[in-house]
């Protein structure tokens, strides 16, 4: 039997250390620990999350408190990031606005997952007509490049931060559908699926217990990088006036306000944009690390 010769070859091989059983997840965690980028990303992200959550502790000011006589103060003691036209403290507005921006990214990706994952699983598992219809829909959505689909959706629903999140979520969902479909297709032909079916498992049970766990690793990677992309897209919509509306201190909206005063108050534009960049950079570094650790095939 070929397998027994294979096994004996293994035992004869000079293996120095005893082999501990290691799960794929633990392997991934080890790889992730070695990634310097991921560490930097986690550290940066941790600081940012702590700062926006601890906003009331870090600054006693009110993000919406208007002090007209303190308008357009440049960065300095008292107002580290300066003030806007109405004398509102920029640091305070950014800390509170960061909550909105982070949540926007997460909710957008959640929308994309809720739409994309069922589409991908149904398409990959059942195949046939369902597959063709769903993939046709995915193709249609992908014919609108970049932020254009989100713009179409916002044009239909009307401008608001919530609609911007829906728009960004819907326009990101085809990517998730495709990846989940590909993973499902690969998993469906595995022997353990056949075994489960032979044991009389129902299709929903096979999907939930045996197919979906396969999609977790690629979805963690895509979802993490997706939060970064969604934050930029949602901020872009807010910047265009199609997302968060004043006085909501979402970072893109802050930047949009600041743009009119670029000549007199550069800090109103510079700091919110910098905050977006640093946060997105942190998430991207973490995402890159996760991708290398979890799914080297996704490497681009």
């Amino acid at each position, binding site marked *: 039997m070929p397998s027994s010769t294979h096994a004996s070859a293994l035992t004869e091989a000079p293996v120095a250390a005893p082999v501990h059983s290691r799960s794929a997840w633990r392997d991934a965690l080890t790889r992730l620990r070695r990634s310097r980028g991921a560490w930097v990303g986690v550290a940066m992200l941790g600081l940012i999350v702590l700062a926006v959550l601890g906003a009331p502790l870090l600054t006693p000011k009110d993000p919406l408190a208007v002090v007209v006589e303190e308008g357009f103060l440049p960065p300095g003691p008292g107002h580290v990031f300066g003030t806007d036209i109405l004398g509102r403290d920029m640091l305070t507005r950014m800390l509170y606005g960061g909550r909105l921006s982070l949540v926007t990214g997460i909710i957008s990706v959640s929308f994309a997952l809720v739409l994309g994952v069922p589409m991908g699983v149904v398409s990959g598992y059942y195949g046939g007509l369902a597959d063709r219809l769903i993939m046709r829909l995915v193709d249609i959505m992908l014919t*609108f490049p970049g932020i254009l689909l989100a713009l179409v959706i916002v044009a239909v629903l009307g401008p608001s931060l919530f609609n911007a999140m829906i728009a960004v979520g819907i326009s990101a969902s085809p990517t998730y559908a495709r990846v989940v479909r590909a993973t499902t297709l690969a998993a469906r032909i595995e022997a353990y699926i056949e075994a489960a079916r032979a044991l009389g498992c129902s299709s929903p049970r096979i999907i939930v217990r045996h197919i979906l766990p396969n999609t977790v690793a690629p979805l963690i990677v895509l979802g993490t990088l997706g939060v970064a992309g969604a934050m930029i897209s949602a901020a872009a919509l807010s910047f265009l006036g199609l997302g968060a509306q004043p006085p909501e201190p979402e970072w893109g909206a802050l930047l949009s306000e600041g743009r009119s005063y670029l000549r007199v108050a550069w800090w109103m534009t510079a700091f919110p944009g910098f905050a977006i960049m640093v946060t997105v950079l942190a998430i991207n570094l973490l995402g890159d690390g996760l991708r290398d650790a979890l799914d080297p095939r996704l490497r681009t």
Partner: protein
Amino acid sequence: MLEYVAKRLLLTIPTVVTITLVVFLMLHAVPGDPAIIFAGDKNVTPEQLAVVRLEMGLDRPIMVQYIDYLSRILVLNLGRSLYSRIPVTHEIGNRVSSSAELAVAAFALASVLGILLGVVSALWRSSWVDVAAMSFAIVGVSMPIFWLASMLIFVFAIMLGWFPVTGAGGLNRLVLPALALGMISSATLARLVRSSVLEILSQPYVTTARSKGLREIVILTRHVLKNAFIPVITVMGLQFGTLLSGAVITETVFARPGLGKLLVDAILIKDFPVIQAVILIVSLIYVLMNLLVDVSYAFLDPRIRFD
């Protein structure tokens, strides 16, 4: 080859039809009565609405309306702006050159910078050049374009006064927008070119070429780059789409009178004929670009033709 091109061309027909369908249905997906949109969202009497409905043909079955819409597209009648009453094709015609100028300049910059950085960092892998180029790339990927554009305006137009702040026309007004748009795209491209070149460098045929004693420059140009560029071209096609949507934002920041600015302004005032027309045109351009990419792809890689 010709057969492949014909087949690929046929495949775009359903795509184009679905785009027109989505753009057509947009108007009907808006909550409420489309007649109210055409009446300008003001307080209108039911009689006025009835007139609008009749004028716009909104009282007919939706299939008839769609076919009517298609036949109007074929004769390039995209309706009139609800506010300026100018034919939309006219508005688009006035602005398309400004957008094309920006897209081409940014695309050229992105390609040159992205390919250069990617190739250099792959060849000197793990050196300081690689680290610097890839740091630039990940920062570029994370940078919101509207922020980069604003900062370029602040530094080079307001502080240094080297370039005009806004508007279109002349090379002078093209530099900053093209820089903003091109730099963001070059970051994505650099990352892809690097991994693509690295993958090819590890192929057995490169080792063979080396052991034959070919000069490095010959190996690089004839064996490595030619193969590495196959995936790169696809992504450059996709990048063109990113560029189109990035242009929406760039044009708004620089107040350039292009298609993107037209679209954003139209969405803000719910000028639906303009919104629909711009989305239609931009999507069609994107489809055309993808077609060109696929054809050039088949030209470069014979395996695709015979699939």
